[in-house]
């Protein structure tokens, strides 16, 4: 326990020093994860909304698949992305391996099923309330999906947050396709893994504390937004 507090103290010191390497690593982490979450939302929200709002053959199978994909281990996602992006893989000519773009792609594969599966649930709950009114008004399929996504927007923000949490904290996928290259693809989680393997537990823990602080800040911001939405009965 004593060494834990000592390490924690040193961690806080490192954060307060806030050197340029730390800023670079934190910045890249945010850039990669936010991009991945944005793309995942572009794909996953409409997908989830369509599955939530429409009845079609094989719908249950699609839901089971989305829910299962939520549990994909990041390492497996990293391997899949690696095999596709590798020079020997189908997307090799894009030359994306060991770049931030590769990490964004891997995290997008990781997060999209989460966004789709959770938004399916959110939209379906909302749609149960709206379905008859939409039928009565004669709302077409496109307007239906758009209206549901808009009306569930504050709940869907929490969905995006779940995706963000998963992506920002994972190491297995980004370390395989990013390669943890200094100043190129080194993010918070891969640095934590590296520093742990070098026995630099203080630095590793300091980055862990930064990661936690970012998670707290993002969650806090979203929850504040949601609270005001609840007051307006929008959530």
């Amino acid at each position, binding site marked *: 326990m004593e060494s834990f507090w000592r390490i924690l103290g040193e961690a806080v010191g490192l954060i307060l020093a806030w050197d340029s390497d730390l800023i670079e690593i934190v910045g890249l982490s945010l850039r990669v994860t936010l991009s991945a979450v944005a793309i995942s939302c572009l794909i996953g929200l409409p997908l989830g909304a369509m599955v939530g709002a429409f009845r079609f053959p094989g719908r249950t199978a699609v839901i089971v698949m989305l829910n299962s994909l939520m549990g994909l281990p990041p390492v497996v996602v990293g391997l899949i992305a690696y095999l596709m992006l*590798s020079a020997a893989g*189908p997307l090799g000519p*894009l030359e994306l391996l060991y770049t931030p773009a590769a990490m964004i792609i891997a995290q*997008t594969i990781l997060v999209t099923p989460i966004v789709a599966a959770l938004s399916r649930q959110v939209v379906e709950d909302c749609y149960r309330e709206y379905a008859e009114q939409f039928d009565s008004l004669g709302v077409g399929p496109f307007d239906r999906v758009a209206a549901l996504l808009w009306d569930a927007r504050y709940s869907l923000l929490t969905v995006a947050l779940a995706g963000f949490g998963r992506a920002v904290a994972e190491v297995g996928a980004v370390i395989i396709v990013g390669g943890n290259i*200094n100043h190129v693809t080194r993010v918070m989680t891969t640095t934590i893994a*590296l520093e*742990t393997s070098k*026995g630099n537990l203080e630095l590793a823990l300091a980055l862990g504390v930064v990661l936690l602080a970012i998670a707290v800040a993002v969650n806090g911001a979203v929850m504040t937004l949601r609270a005001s939405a609840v007051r307006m009965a929008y959530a």
Partner: protein
Amino acid sequence: MAGRILPSLAAIALMALGLIHPAAADRFIVVQSTTSTQNSGLYDHILPLFRERTGIEVRVVAVGTGQALRNAANGDGDVLLVHARSDEERFVSDGHGISRADVMYNDFVIVGPAKDPAGVAGMEDAVAALARIAEAEAPFVSRGDDSGTHKVELELWEEAGIDIAAASGSWYRETGSGMGAALNTAGGMGAYAMADRATWTSFANRNGQRILVEGDPRLFNQYGIVLVNPDKHPNVKAGLGRLFVDWVLSEEGQAAIAAYRVDGQQVFFPNAGG
């Protein structure tokens, strides 16, 4: 199929967002490397010198030797720098690489807890020391990850006539992890472990562990460098890779390796052309 379409869409979206700059991919190479060279800080010392000389950025992907060989065989790297000589030679003979060369060496050491329950401290014969650890059934942490270090360790056990497979799970513990993670584990459970001297010397979380066995010629650890074959993998930047290989093997590169110190100790000994 969706698995293919998805990243394509993502890549297109990323390009639209300006997050990918395909044109920026020019003056750098990727080196697939073992972890010991990176974790010890060697690259942080020599790569800036190379960049200053040539303007070429070297991006190091530090993974276990097994994974580095596999990645390079896929063409995902321009240069390979690892420590598993027979594997490197097979890599070249399989056509994945062009000519392998010695770069430098250091040695492995056997580390363990200060109270040394098997009583191996000060021994020079690594095989005898391992036999004694096995006899005492003192905990031993193995990398267990098919890395260069792991392969040498397995050879030593075999020479000592110990059936490791039978002991696995009892006193012999395969962590399946990198050098640093294995050392963290060994420190945590007061176990013996074999490490390369470079990683050990720069390792911060020693947890009361110390070097108990060193100096056996069988603990010699040779690093080699291989240029990935551009005929097999057209994307390989053979020209830039060649510049790096030549520089590492040159007098200047070798001197840079020799000059690197961890806590005042030299941890890599250049031996190119030797």
